[in-house]
C-alpha cells in the first residue's frame, strides 16, 4: 500500500493526467465516475484525480521533509546534549522542556503567525514542534552510550568530540532515530495537512491534500465527494505509514513486537490428555497431588517444569519441598490453585485433590472460593507481592472480605488482630502504612497475615525467607512453626535450604529437573540420603556453626528441561552413574516411609 502510494507520488509527472489547475467552470462539481473525470471535479471544475495525485505528492513531500528536518535538528541537539553533558546538556534540555510545555499546535501556530502563512513556513513550524521529541529520545540513548568503553577508548585515542559524536555515537543511535522517524512521519503528514486545511499552509493555486479538504469544506454538504476524496487519501497515506512504522519498530526493537509481554489468565490453562490418574496417597490426605504435569509452552518449545509430580500432605503436616531453582518446586505449588502464569504455563496432566475432591477441573468460581480460603500462599519476595499503591490494611481487609462478608470496620479490626498474630509491632499504626514504608521482615509478616486471613487448611510457603536477612529469617520461621502448631495448618514449605527444612518439617521431598527424586522423613533423609543428588545437595549446606567451610558444589548444571537426557536426568552429573542409568525411565521406588528415584542408591539407604 505504502509502496503503491510512493510509486504513484514519484511517477506523477509521467502520468497522463489532466492539468490539476486547469479550471473549467462549466464542469463544476462533476460527480465521480463522470466520463472525463474519474473522481469528478471540484468547485472550479478542476479534475479531482489529477489534483489528488499532485496533492498526495505534495503532502508526502512536505510531511517527509518536516520529519527529516525535525529528525536532523533534534538528533543533533540530542547527541550534543547527551554527549557533552553538564551545562550544555542542562541548557539544551531546559529549552526543549520549554518547547514541550506548549500544547503542540499552538507553537506551530505562533511560528506560522510570525513567518506568515505558506507552505515552507508550515513545514518549518511542524518540524520545530516535533524536534523536541527527537532531541529528548536521542539524548536519552546518547547519555547511556557516552559512558560506554568504546567511547572512552575513542577519547583516549585522541579523537575530537565532534569526530566521536559522528563516528562512534551516531551509528549507534541511528536505529532509535529511524524508529522515531517512522513512527512520527504519519503524524507530521497529518499536521502539515492540518495547517494547510486551516489555510495556513500551501496557498492557492498550489494544493496539498489538506488545502484540498479545506477548500472542499465550503461545499461539504452539497458536494461531499470533493472532500471525501482527499480525506480518504490522507487517511490511507497516514495509516500505511503508521503500519510501516509499527513494522520497522518491531523489526528494530523486538522487545515491543512479537516479544511483547503476554498477560497471565485468571487461572492456568488445564489441557489434560488421558484419564486422571488414581490417587496414590489413598483417601484421607488433605491435599493430594498425583502425577502433576505442568509445562511451559513457548512457541514450539515445550518445557516440562513439573514432569509427573506426586505429593501428599496430611492435616497439620509440614512438608519440605527442596531443590535448586528451576527444579519445578514453585511450579508444583502454584499449580495446586492454578496460579502458574498462563500463557505460557499449561497443566498437561495429573490431578490435585483437596479432601478427595478434584480441583483442577473445578470452574473458576469454585476455584476462586478455594484460593485463600482453603489454600493460601506466602510468596518469596514481599516487596513485589504486595500491591505498592494500597495500604496494607486495605490489602488485608480485602483478603478477609473476599471470603467472609463483613463490614469494613469489622474487617479492619480483624486485620489488626491478624497483624498482632504475626507479631507485628504496633499493628494499629502499621495498618495504615504502605508496603514501601515497612521493612522486609515486616512485609513478610503482612504476607503471612494475609495468608492467614481466612483460616486456611494449607499454606504454600514459597521460599518465604529467602529474601530476608538471617535473624529475620529465624523469626519468620519460628512464627510459621508456631502458627502451624496452634492452628493445625498444613504447610508445604518450598526452599533450597536444608537447614530450614530440618527446623520446620517432619517430611521432605527433593526435586530435580521437574521430578521428585527422593522423599522421606526429614531426619532419616538428612542422616542418610539415598539419592546421589540429595547427598550432594546436603553436602552443599554448611553445618550450623561450622563457619565458612568451603562448600562442595555439584559439578555441571541441571539439564535444559526441553532436552532431558533419557533415563535418569541426573546421570550427566552423577558420580555413581552407570550405562543402565540412561537406558530407560527410572522409577520412584518406595520402601516404607522413604522413596528414591535411583538405580544405584547410596549405600546407607
Amino acid at each position: 500500500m505504502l509502496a503503491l502510494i510512493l510509486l504513484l507520488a514519484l511517477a506523477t509527472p509521467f502520468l497522463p493526467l489532466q492539468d490539476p489547475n486547469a479550471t473549467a467552470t462549466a464542469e463544476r462539481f462533476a460527480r465521480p465516475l463522470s466520463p472525463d473525470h474519474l473522481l469528478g471535479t471540484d468547485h472550479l471544475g478542476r479534475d479531482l484525480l489529477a489534483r489528488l495525485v499532485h496533492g498526495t505528492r505534495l503532502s508526502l513531500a512536505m510531511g517527509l521533509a518536516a520529519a527529516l528536518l525535525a529528525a536532523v535538528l533534534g538528533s543533533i541537539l540530542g547527541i550534543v546534549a547527551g554527549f557533552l553533558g553538564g551545562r550544555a546538556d542542562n541548557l539544551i534540555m531546559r529549552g526543549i522542556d520549554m518547547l514541550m510545555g506548549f500544547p503542540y499546535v499552538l507553537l506551530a501556530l505562533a511560528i506560522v503567525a510570525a513567518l506568515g502563512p505558506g507552505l515552507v513556513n508550515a513545514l518549518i513550524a511542524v518540524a520545530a514542534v516535533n524536534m523536541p521529541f527527537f532531541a529528548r529520545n536521542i539524548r536519552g540513548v546518547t547519555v547511556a552510550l557516552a559512558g560506554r568503553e568504546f567511547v572512552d577508548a575513542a577519547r583516549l585515542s585522541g579523537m575530537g568530540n565532534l569526530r566521536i559524536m559522528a563516528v562512534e555515537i551516531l551509528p549507534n543511535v541511528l536505529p532509535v532515530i529511524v524508529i522515531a522517524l517512522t513512527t512520527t512521519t504519519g503524524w507530521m503528514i497529518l499536521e502539515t495537512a492540518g495547517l494547510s486545511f486551516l489555510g495556513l499552509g500551501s496557498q492557492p493555486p498550489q494544493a496539498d491534500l489538506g488545502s484540498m479538504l479545506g477548500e472542499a469544506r465550503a461545499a461539504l454538504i452539497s458536494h461531499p465527494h470533493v472532500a471525501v476524496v482527499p480525506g480518504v487519501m490522507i487517511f490511507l497515506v497516514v495509516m500505511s505509514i503508521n503500519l510501516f512504522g509499527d513494522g520497522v519498530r518491531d523489526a528494530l526493537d523486538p522487545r515491543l513486537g512479537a516479544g511483547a509481554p503476554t498477560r497471565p489468565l485468571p487461572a492456568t490453562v488445564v489441557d489434560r490428555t488421558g484419564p486422571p490418574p488414581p490417587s496414590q496417597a489413598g483417601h484421607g490426605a488433605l491435599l493430594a497431588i498425583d502425577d502433576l504435569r505442568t509445562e511451559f509452552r513457548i512457541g514450539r518449545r515445550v518445557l516440562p517444569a513439573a514432569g509427573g509430580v506426586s505429593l501428599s500432605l496430611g492435616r497439620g503436616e509440614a512438608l519440605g519441598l527442596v531443590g535448586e531453582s528451576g527444579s519445578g518446586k514453585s511450579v508444583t505449588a502454584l499449580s495446586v490453585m492454578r496460579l502458574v502464569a498462563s500463557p505460557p504455563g499449561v497443566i498437561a496432566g495429573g490431578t490435585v485433590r483437596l479432601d478427595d475432591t478434584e480441583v483442577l477441573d473445578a470452574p473458576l468460581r469454585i476455584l476462586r472460593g478455594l484460593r485463600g480460603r482453603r489454600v493460601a500462599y506466602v510468596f518469596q519476595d514481599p516487596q513485589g507481592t504486595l500491591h505498592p499503591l494500597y495500604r496494607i490494611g486495605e490489602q488485608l481487609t480485602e483478603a478477609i472480605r473476599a471470603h467472609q462478608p463483613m463490614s469494613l470496620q469489622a474487617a479492619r479490626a480483624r486485620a489488626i488482630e491478624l497483624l498482632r498474630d504475626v507479631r507485628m509491632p504496633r499493628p494499629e499504626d502499621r495498618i495504615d502504612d504502605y508496603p514501601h514504608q515497612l521493612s522486609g521482615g515486616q512485609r513478610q509478616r503482612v504476607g503471612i497475615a494475609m495468608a492467614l486471613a481466612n483460616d486456611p487448611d494449607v499454606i504454600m510457603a514459597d521460599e518465604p525467607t529467602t529474601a530476608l536477612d538471617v535473624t529475620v529469617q529465624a523469626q519468620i520461621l519460628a512464627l510459621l512453626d508456631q502458627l502451624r502448631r496452634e492452628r493445625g495448618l498444613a504447610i508445604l514449605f518450598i526452599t533450597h535450604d536444608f537447614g530450614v527444612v530440618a527446623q520446620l518439617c517432619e517430611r521432605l521431598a527433593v526435586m530435580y529437573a521437574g521430578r521428585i527424586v527422593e522423599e522421606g522423613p526429614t531426619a532419616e533423609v538428612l542422616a542418610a540420603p539415598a539419592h546421589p543428588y540429595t547427598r550432594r545437595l546436603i553436602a552443599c549446606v554448611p553445618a550450623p556453626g561450622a563457619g565458612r567451610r568451603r562448600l562442595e558444589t555439584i559439578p555441571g548444571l541441571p539439564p535444559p528441561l526441553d532436552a532431558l537426557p533419557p533415563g535418569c536426568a541426573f546421570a550427566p552429573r552423577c558420580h555413581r552413574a552407570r550405562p543402565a542409568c540412561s537406558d530407560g525411565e527410572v522409577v520412584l521406588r518406595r520402601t516404607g516411609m522413604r522413596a528414591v528415584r535411583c538405580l544405584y542408591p547410596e549405600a546407607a539407604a
Partner: protein
Amino acid sequence: MGGYILRRLIAAVPVLLGITVIVFLVMSLIPGDPATAILGAYATPENVEKLNRDLGLDRPMVERYVIWLGNMLQGDFGRSFSRNRPVIDEVAERFSATLVLAGTSFVLCAFFGIIAGVISAVRQYGFADRLITFAVLVGISVPPFFLGMIMILVFAVHLRWLPVSGMYAIYGGGDLADLLRHLVMPALALAAVAAGVVARLARSAMLEVLRQDHIRTARAKGLPERRVILGHALRSAMVSIIPVLGLQAGFVLSGAVYIETVFQWPGVGRMLVDAILTRDLMLVQGGVVLVAAAYVLFNIAVDVAQALLDPRIKT
C-alpha cells in the same frame, strides 16, 4: 500535599517565563515592520513612526520584552485591532468555549481509551483485542478535521440527528440540552486520536502490570477477577497512564484548532487562526501565552493527581 502543590507552582514560574520568552522571540522573527503590517502598505512614514513609538517598537528588544511582560503581569495583554477589544477579554470568552469542547473530549478520550486498553489487554490476541487494535490504528490515522467532516455528513446531513455546527442554535437555543447536542460530534471527533493513543498505552501498561507478582497475590487471595483487573492491575497501570493523559491534553487542545474550524465552534483555536490570517498579532501573542499558561497549570494538576495516586512519590 499542600506544600507539594505550592512547590510545583513555584517551579512552574520559570517555565511560564520561558514560554513568554519563546513567544516573544518567535514574534520578533516577523519579517518587515509590524507597524507597516498593521497600517497597510499605504501608510505614511509619519504614521508608521508614530505607531512604532506607541507600540514601543523603537526601543531595544530586552526593554521591549520587560515592558511586555510587566503589562501582562498587570493583566494587560494589549488590544486586538480586528476585534477592537482587549485581548484578554476576547481570549477569556473564546477559551471558555474551547474548555467546554476540549474538556469533554479529554474526559471521553481518557474514559474510552482506558476501557479499550484494559479490554484489549485482558483479551490479548482475542477478537476484541484485534478489533480494538484495528480501531486504534484507524483512530490515530484519520485526520481529525476529516473525521469531523464525515460525521457532519453522516449524522447531521444524512441522518439529521445532530446540528451541523456551532455551539448553540441561533433561534431558541442556549440551554444545556442545546449545548450538548452541538457538543456531541466535535467532542467525539476531537477525542478519537487521543483515545487511540491512550488505548495503545493503556494496553501495554496493563500487559506489563498483569505480569507482576502482586497480581498473582491478588488472585491467590481469591479475589474476583473483576477486582483483580480493575482494582489491582488498573490502579498500578494508572501510574504510567496518567502522565500520558497529561500529554494527550496537549493533543486535544491542539486538535481543537481543527475541530473548531470544521464545526464553527467559537473557541480559541479558531480565534488564533483567524487572528493569524488577519495578522492581528497582539491577539495571537496574548492568546498563545494564555493558553500555554493554562496548559502548564493543567500539567501541574496532572502531577498532583499522580502524587495522590502513588504514595511512593515524595510530596
